[in-house]
């Protein structure tokens, strides 16, 4: 198989997978490195990546994090089961799409506007995106391919994603369970010992300890150097 879409870094200005001629897979089939393959083949390659590469991570998006539709809970349960079968897998959410300012907590979340930060900081070499709206997923996947060497897996309820190394479309909870079984099979084949364990909870950073920071840590802008009451800086002696 000629790998048309591979792990990055693809470079400063990545070429998009569709512009390289990659087309979405029809229903019932998946994409692997930009080629149409059976769903199982894509899942198997993805499973091996998740089992053998450093810091496998699942990035759940808003559609699976928030309880907005009847079938979400079932999918979420299936996803958690799957995550529990991947040794040392982490879950880092993408709870929304706004550009967060000034900067996200890279241990606790991933943001579609600069997903590289989370991937690089956590040294993630294989990851799954699920429940992210297709537009934001495509942007994120492309930026990850541009700036990191992470193996990306897209689990999509709709058309799938050309930018991912492995892409499954029309995903239902049953597909997640199938994927889980494949992971277990491959794990056994690879001889990896693992007891089913849920990923650790979100490691939101504790508040920064103010007393250890030097004033130079703080901003240059007008908001910062403000005078004490009754002590206007109008003139310099």
């Amino acid at each position, binding site marked *: 198989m000629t790998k048309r879409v591979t792990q990055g870094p693809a470079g400063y200005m990545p070429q998009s997978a569709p512009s390289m001629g990659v087309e979405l897979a029809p229903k019932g089939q998946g994409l692997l490195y930009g080629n149409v393959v059976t769903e199982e083949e894509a899942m198997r390659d993805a499973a091996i990546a998740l089992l053998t590469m450093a810091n496998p991570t699942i990035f759940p998006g808003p559609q699976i994090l928030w309880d907005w539709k009847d079938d979400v809970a079932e999918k979420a349960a299936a996803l958690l089961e799957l995550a529990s079968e991947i040794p040392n897998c982490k879950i880092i959410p993408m709870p929304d799409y706004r550009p967060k300012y000034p900067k996200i907590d890279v241990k606790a979340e991933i943001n579609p506007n600069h997903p590289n930060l989370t991937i690089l900081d956590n*040294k993630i070499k294989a990851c799954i995106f699920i429940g992210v709206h297709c537009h934001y997923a495509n942007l994120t996947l492309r930026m990850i391919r541009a700036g990191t060497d992470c193996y990306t897996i897209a689990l999509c309820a709709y058309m799938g994603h050309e930018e991912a190394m492995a892409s499954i479309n029309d995903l239902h909870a049953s597909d997640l369970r199938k994927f889980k079984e494949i992971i277990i099979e491959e794990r056994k084949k690879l001889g990896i010992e693992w007891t089913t364990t849920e990923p650790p909870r979100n490691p939101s950073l504790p508040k920064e300890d103010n007393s250890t920071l030097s004033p130079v*840590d703080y901003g*240059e802008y007008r908001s*910062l*150097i403000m005078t004490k009451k009754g002590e206007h800086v109008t003139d310099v002696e």
Partner: protein
Amino acid sequence: MEARKRYNIRISGLGGQGVVTTAHILGSTMDNAGKYASLVPFFGSEKRMAPVEAYVRASSEPIYEVGEVVYPDIIMIYHSQVITHGKSYTMPFYTGLKPDSLIIINTDRNVLEEDDIQVLKDLNAKVVQFDATDLAVKVAGTELATNMAMMGMLLGLTELVTTENIEKAVKERFLGTSFISSGGTAALDSAIEKKFKKKEELLQKNMDVINKTFEMANSVDLSGSELIVQLAPNL
């Protein structure tokens, strides 16, 4: 690293460290020395702890290129958190670094991890780590002179200009009127000035810092094979 005709410099730091100010002074210094520089303005409002980047091109020849410095040959890191906390939008901090290049980091201890060290070794880079904040506090009595220490080290190591050129540029920055600063920078300036009572004193303190870093830079030998040169504050 060998002297080059042209240095493309990327400066990363946190809001409040004078990253953009350095870029401006660096530019005028090159101009005063009869050389060339180009600056790239950095848009976007900043606040404390927010990542800030500035870009300067310095050369003995005219510069045509515009835009941010994507492929630098010098990277200056004003705060170790840029590396340790990933407080930069350019991740990792050495992204785009050209071979045989120089990195100056403001820190009192090594902040590079094994992975980073390997990449930088492959690039045959040199990393100078020194505590610029400590130096600023000890010599000028304020950490706000950290940027002067960083700039002094850069110019001392590259020998692009003389301290006279720098003095003129610093004078322009704090005494002259040609520099248009943002509202925030103006407030910062007045705070610094207030602290020093007299502008001349402020200027002198800044120059003391720069002279000190020139001295330190003189003692640095970058021809060795080791990647990291850790300078102890020689005070």
